[in-house]
């Protein structure tokens, strides 16, 4: 197995390779406005770092958000086109699940990321025992920070750093790592068919959670006054 994972749902452009046992290369660049510019070089770099060829890739995993639309689509279209051109399957993973994967400790916690427009994307998780994968129990949703039902649970992710009054204090990690998405997907793919998979892989459909801003035109504006 050589799994390529990538995510552009947040401010970080990240790519990683996983060989079925562990993450063998990982890159991350943080620049919220340059996803389309940075992702392809990051993928080329992880292949180079690991000394592997693109034709060895067996699976592609993409973070499907939720996240700001233009950036999110860069990862999704890249994954879909790579999948079509290399003839390998494309798996989607909720990007918030990737952040949850990196949260240590047990019990209940939330992941919140920046949804812009003074809102956050968030989901609630529970981890039974140390080392066990976290389970998403609610979400993902998009809400105003004050409307997130924190209920004393720790909040991790970039959203918590932006709105400390409502969600803080923020716990690490702040951003999703492609390595975490890769590990999560590798586990899920290895477990499929035998044990119940702890995290469900999904299609590569982006989780927009918001409808496009578009209003049909109203009555014709008059030019005569």
């Amino acid at each position, binding site marked *: 197995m050589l799994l390529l994972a990538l995510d552009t749902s947040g401010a970080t452009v990240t790519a990683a390779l996983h060989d079925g046992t562990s993450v063998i290369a990982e890159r991350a660049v943080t620049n919220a406005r340059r996803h389309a*510019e940075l992702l*392809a070089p990051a993928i080329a770099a992880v292949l180079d770092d690991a000394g592997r060829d693109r034709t060895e890739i067996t699976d592609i995993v993409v973070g499907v958000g939720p996240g700001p639309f233009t950036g999110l*689509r860069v990862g999704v279209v890249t994954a879909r086109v790579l999948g079509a051109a290399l003839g390998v399957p494309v798996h989607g993973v909720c990007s918030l699940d990737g952040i949850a994967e990196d949260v240590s400790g047990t019990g209940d916690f939330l992941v919140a990321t920046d949804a812009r427009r003074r809102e956050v994307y968030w989901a609630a998780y529970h981890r039974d025992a140390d080392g066990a994968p976290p389970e998403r129990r609610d979400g993902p949703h998009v809400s105003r920070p004050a409307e997130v039902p924190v209920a004393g649970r720790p909040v991790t992710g970039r959203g918590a750093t932006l709105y400390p009054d409502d969600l803080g204090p923020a716990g690490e990690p702040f951003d999703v790592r492609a390595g975490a998405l890769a590990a999560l997907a590798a586990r899920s793919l290895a477990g499929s068919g035998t044990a119940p998979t702890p995290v469900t892989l999904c299609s590569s459909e982006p989780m927009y959670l918001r409808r496009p801003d578009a209003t049909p035109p109203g009555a014709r504006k008059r030019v005569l006054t």
Partner: protein
Amino acid sequence: MTDAPLVLGIESSCDETGVGVVRGSTLLADAVASSVDEHARFGGVIPEVASRAHLEAMVPTIERACATAGVRLTDVDALAVTSGPGLAGALTVGVAAAKALALALGVPLYGVNHLAAHVAVDILEHGPLPEPSVALLASGGHSSLLFVTDVTADVRPLGQTIDDAAGEAFDKIARLLGLPFPGGPHVDRVAVDGDPAAVAFPRGLTARHDLERHRYDFSFSGLKTAVARWVERAEADGRTIPVADVAASFQEAVVDVLTRKAVAACVEHGAGHLLIGGGVAANSRLRALAEQRCLAAGIRLRVPRPGLCTDNGAMVAALGAQLVARGRPPSALDLVVDSSLPVTTVRVG
């Protein structure tokens, strides 16, 4: 020509997801998925709606183009993609897709200018472009006059619209007259039964003092206001709007200015050929008047068939193939999208 490089081009600057395949200057496939129906009720292209549609259409359109061309993706020798100008979010989907293909196939990628691609597409239909030529590009997104000495390296802007694009004016007048979006084909259809001389609508930037500063520029917003004013007056007077006459008179005002300035540019710059592209090139009256005026001025007119005038992937592939043929270097993998890419930048480095 079987040895000429196989080039796949991707276009996503507005509401058409286009993927074209050419070998040298031979067109093999031109697959287009349009989101125009999703924009119709808004009376204009909604960028986020267009971007979402590009994402969904990208892989199926690439696959359809390859199937039509009878080639496999692994046969492709080079890729070309529109880097700009256009809607940033829409361009981003195409550029990311093209980079992924370049990465997966290990072939060079050319980020190209959308306007230069509108010029290059005619090579597929009418052979090598005589140099120099003048190109008139008119669509819902742009209205430009270009002086082309080398479509791969030297395209100079002579003039452009200073307000609305020509196609945008057609959309707005169509709405005013109760015709559907996009307005161009409907105004054209209705105008057939109208008198183009019924109303003397203004010709923007054609007065002597305007010509000094805006010799080859266009302006359609004054015309749009004049039509709206005329219609409102008629309504206020309780008259039935003579839709066909208004459409014909409006259309005449647009194509009169477009062709008059285009022919003047050819004459003044010593170009023996005029090329017309963009969606408005499908307008029957524009074609007829351009033919008549070019004939009178001794200029050869080149207009690609309508499917190649509107935005498509074949035009991008056509320009890519020219860049390959002329040995131009490809773009880097960190190629950027530029929503206002100047036409002087044919190929993004």
